[in-house]
């Protein structure tokens, strides 16, 4: 399957995000490094897309451009037909590092983006999302008193509280142990099924991508191009020992150039 086939197969009406001929070149100390080369990608509303690729290939850079934190060297990123010119609360970034504010309590963090709401509504929203991510009883706790998984849930709750259309997640579970990571995947999927946000999820974990995404975008090594876009045609909840799952996962591993045996 080629990139162009995938794109044309999508319904144009539901297009949420469109990356067109995107190039990113970094210039440092007079040296130029091309990072992203001619990236084209269309994401539909409510879709869950994972971006995978070798370490350092520019996955996070791509997400930063989509989030408006970085301007493209050429090409464009459009959301709902509008060119992205900066960060916006309608699309919230969940950061790779722990981005929760350590000087605020759990409540303070979740309410951080809700400063425009009246106090009563803010309180209600905060309570709703504390419940959703299972942090009841920790309302007054500071992040330093929480475990890694709880901090990550807090960050997701802070992002969801402003009711964005889109979530960008940059290796959100990368720092967690494998059991917590497994639980967090399930929780993110159930949140996604309940709220139907458009999600772009960057990960270096191919299993994670195949378990969660509707489609997996495989980037090549730097300068990154879109090597392949794989449709994951397994309904949720996914059986991760099914032959179709293994077939799709092994296909992506081969794309990246890894053998399926260690």
């Amino acid at each position, binding site marked *: 399957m080629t990139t162009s086939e995938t794109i044309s197969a999508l319904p144009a009406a539901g297009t949420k995000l469109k990356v067109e001929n995107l190039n990113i070149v970094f210039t440092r100390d007079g040296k130029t490094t091309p990072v992203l080369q001619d990236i084209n990608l269309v994401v539909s509303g409510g879709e869950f897309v994972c971006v995978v690729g070798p370490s350092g290939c520019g996955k996070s850079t791509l997400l930063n451009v989509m*989030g408006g*934190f970085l301007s493209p060297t050429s090409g464009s990123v459009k959301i709902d037909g509008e060119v992205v010119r*900066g*960060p*916006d*609360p309608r699309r*919230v*970034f969940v*950061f790779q*590092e*722990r*981005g929760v*504010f*350590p*000087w*605020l309590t759990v409540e303070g963090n979740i309410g*951080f*983006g809700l*400063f425009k709401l009246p106090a009563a509504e803010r309180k209600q929203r905060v309570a709703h999302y504390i419940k959703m991510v299972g942090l009841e009883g920790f309302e007054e706790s*500071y*992040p*330093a008193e929480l475990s890694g998984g709880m901090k990550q849930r807090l960050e997701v709750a802070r992002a969801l509280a*402003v009711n964005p259309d889109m979530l960008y997640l940059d290796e959100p579970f990368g720092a967690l142990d494998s059991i917590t990571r497994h639980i967090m995947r399930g929780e993110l999927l159930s949140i996604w099924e309940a709220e139907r946000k458009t999600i772009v999820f960057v990960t270096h974990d191919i299993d994670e991508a195949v378990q969660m995404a509707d489609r997996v975008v495989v980037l090549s090594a730097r300068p990154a191009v879109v090597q392949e876009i794989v449709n994951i045609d397994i309904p949720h909840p996914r059986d991760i020992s099914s032959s179709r799952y293994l077939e799709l996962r092994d296909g992506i591993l081969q794309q990246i150039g890894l053998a399926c045996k260690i």
Partner: protein
Amino acid sequence: MVRLRPIVFIAVLLVAWQVAVSRHPAYILPGPWGVVGGMADLVRHGFLFKYVVASLFRVTWGFSLATLLAIPLGLTIGWYRRAQMALNPLVQVFRPISPLAWIPLAILWFGVGDASSIFLIFLGCFFPLLLTSINAVRNIPSVYINAGRNFGLRPAELVYRVLYPAVVPQLLVGLRITLGVAWLVVVAAEMIAVDSGLGFLIVDARNAGNRYDLVVAGMVIIGLIGLLLDTAMRSLEKVRSFRWAYSED
């Protein structure tokens, strides 16, 4: 019992001091009893309170003026990389100059009196605080700033809701160290530039009659007040919304 250990240890040292002084009267050093007597003299004549207030007054002014100027300036310089590049050499040249080297100019400009010692304290505090503020801004993880921008904060809100809380813990450490510097500088400044305060007490006690009991009494008082100032600043670091920056992990 464990809590009493430091007190017992200090008591032992005081006894040793007293014994050593009484066994070697040829050396000029007052014993602890002499120092207590000196303090009693100072209290009786009303000097102790007056001089402590005079010194604290100068430190308060010098330290506060330096804080009010250096912190906003430092935060601004730290935020704008160009400003930092332009001003950094200047700061680095002024910083190693001891505030005491300014004494002649201070007296020339402000005369003998409160103003010149306040000026010296100000100088002693200004540059360390400026550097602390510059570094505090530069050390803010970009993830906090990006998160703030992502939630649609206007620049003024970003300063108030992200930059300020992110730098406060580092600034508190800087303020605590700088207040210690201010307390060092005030004693030196008072030895030369004024006629009151704890520094003046020490010089005056020697000049006006070799009252070394008063000299040491002055030193002990300076030490105790320094300890109190430091403890007060330290207690700020225990505030819950600041404490995150001081935890071990």
